[in-house]
């Protein structure tokens, strides 16, 4: 009996060692530790939007935590400071939580934001703060937003329209469902200038003050990406007098469409409008990915210089590059890096920057932890149909704390960008020309959103 026990134990030891070393994966989809490592509370601090002239300071909103203004020290752009506008959950007396769904500031001193009611049936309300620098806004916007320094522009913003947000150049947009209750009428895209919205008397008449664009039978507007000039992005930010719909600012709209094909599968359609809201491209696709970022570029092969063929290149949130040729109503897609698994992880933000119409930088951020960059050269083929990329370099952007949850990105100019990480309330800048240099990342959990 003793001999049996002895051999049984030795056998268990040997079996354990052998089986353990080989390992048996019962579901070869992704590693357990990878999931554990990425798992953070992504629901707590979601950046709704960042806006404003980054050289003067910009404002951002965290979905469940309030509104903040970030300003840069004039002497050191790498050490931003922050001014707290509204902090804490926005609730009413009944402790219903209101969500900030969109925010806009043209210059970092004025501010518009939309609060959604705690009930899905509540109409969202548009608020304005005239001067955030001298404002005496009560940090507690809780019980009565109108008594805390903000002015309610309208409480009927949601009539016939589901507001979606602000474009970078000063327009409020949403999906318009006309006067019908039929969801399929939600196919229309509504756009109104903030200038018009301001002068309206406590309501926005989208049909007279704004523009309603029919987007065929689609509905479920996903996003709108205004394309800023590639040569001077900061000055392109609306100044009030400029025309945001010049031919240099085409508007990219992506629409989630579930009206065709498999009913439980989302399809995205992409539209490009010119400065006069003339539709240039409508591209129906099965891609289930949003357009994350688009830059305008020039087509050196254009034969008629008086009627340049607008060309855009962009990036899908799955990491595929798209080139949009407006004259032929086409969007081509191709991966930047065949060896890279773009579908791994969740890309929360991607910023594509056009250096000089022939070289580009792409910064991708995973939903949780990582910042990855690509630099590449790109050019249209001689026939103008395809966009070829070459000389790709890539790597991690160093010195970003791996425990930070990265939630947002904003471009500052053509050679730089801000990255914002909210899990540790750190604020980072990155030099796109040298993204992994030690000096390029100046983030610190004690700066920026250290509250």
């Amino acid at each position, binding site marked *: 009996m003793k001999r049996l026990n002895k051999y049984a*134990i030795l056998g268990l030891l040997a079996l354990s060692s052998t089986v*353990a070393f080989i390992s048996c994966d019962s579901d*070869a989809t992704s590693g357990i530790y990878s999931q554990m490592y990425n798992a953070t509370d992504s629901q707590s601090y979601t950046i709704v939007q960042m806006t404003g002239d980054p050289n003067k300071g910009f404002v951002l909103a965290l979905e469940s935590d309030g509104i903040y203004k970030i300003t840069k020290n004039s002497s050191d752009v790498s050490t931003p400071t922050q001014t707290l506008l509204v902090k804490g959950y926005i609730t009413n007396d009944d402790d219903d939580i209101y969500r900030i769904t969109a925010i806009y500031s043209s210059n970092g001193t004025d501010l518009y934001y939309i609060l959604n009611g705690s009930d899905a049936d509540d109409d969202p309300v548009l608020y304005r703060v005239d001067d955030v620098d001298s404002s005496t806004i009560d940090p507690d916007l809780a019980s009565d937003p109108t008594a805390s320094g903000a002015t309610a522009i309208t409480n009927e913003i949601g009539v016939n329209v589901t507001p979606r947000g602000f474009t970078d150049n000063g327009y409020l947009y949403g999906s318009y469902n006309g006067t019908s209750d039929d969801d399929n009428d939600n196919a229309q895209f509504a756009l109104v200038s903030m200038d018009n919205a301001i002068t309206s008397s406590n309501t926005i008449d989208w049909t007279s003050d704004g523009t309603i664009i029919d987007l065929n039978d689609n509905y479920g507007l996903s996003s709108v990406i205004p394309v800023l000039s590639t040569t001077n992005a900061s000055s392109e930010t609306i100044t009030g007098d400029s025309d945001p719909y010049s031919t240099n600012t085409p508007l990219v709209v992506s629409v989630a469409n579930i009206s065709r094909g498999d009913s439980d599968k989302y399809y995205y359609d992409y539209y490009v409008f010119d400065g006069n809201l003339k539709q240039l491209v409508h591209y129906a696709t099965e891609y289930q990915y949003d357009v994350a970022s688009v830059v305008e570029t020039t087509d050196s092969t254009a034969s008629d210089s008086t009627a340049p063929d607008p060309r855009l290149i962009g990036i899908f949130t799955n990491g595929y590059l798209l080139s949009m040729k407006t004259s032929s109503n086409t969007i081509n897609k191709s991966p930047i890096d065949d060896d890279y698994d773009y579908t791994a992880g969740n890309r929360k933000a991607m910023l594509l920057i056009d250096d000089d119409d022939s070289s580009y930088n792409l910064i991708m951020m995973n939903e949780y932890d990582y910042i990855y960059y690509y630099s590449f050269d790109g050019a249209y083929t001689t026939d103008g149909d395809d966009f070829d990329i070459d000389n790709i370099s890539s790597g991690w952007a160093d010195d970003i704390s791996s425990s930070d949850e990265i939630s947002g990105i904003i471009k500052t100019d053509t050679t730089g960008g801000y990255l914002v990480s909210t899990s540790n309330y750190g604020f980072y800048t990155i030099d796109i020309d040298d993204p992994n240099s030690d000096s390029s990342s100046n983030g610190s959990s004690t700066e920026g959103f250290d509250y």
Partner: protein
Amino acid sequence: MKKRFLSLLVVAFVLFSTQALFAEDTYYEKGDTKFSFTTGVTVPLYLHFWESTSDHEDQWNFFSDTNIYTGGYGAISFEKFYSSKISIGGEFGYSFNYDEGSNLYYNIPLMAKVLYYPIQSVKYDGYLFGDLGITYNHYTDENSDSSQGLLSPYISMGIGGTYYFNENWGLGMETGVTFIPQISIYDDTADDNGTFATIPIMLKVSYRN
């Protein structure tokens, strides 16, 4: 604080061990057995991926940077003395941790144990231990409704001591470090291989015979 606690334990154990080396008396005899029930907490020590991928970098993340909370562990174990100071046995347990996304990670280890008892008397004993075995790991991602499990090695080592209220029953403490390497041989998951290490701090009820 954790480092200081561990350091004190090690120093105390070395002192007792040194004293015990010069002691001739032993309490245990070949053939003695011991059953134990263990419960306590597991403090995440580090999580280390061996490769950099699009989802993670090859770097060490300690304690809170693992994004994993302190969890719990419970086990039953058996050991039999093959000399007056060395026992061999087995342990079967259950360990769990929640991560910051409220996702549950648990593992069910089955391991062989070797224990060395330099300190032993009627009232107390002190020991070093090493465990080697396998564990079934399982992780549920609440956000994506995905879950998966895999087998992986389980390695643990540490020190412990028990105070005996009578000849048979005792209450003790145990701590050390546990390593769980994730070793996948499949191409699509091999990049996620890494090691998760914890510091177990355990209470142990033992019955010796």
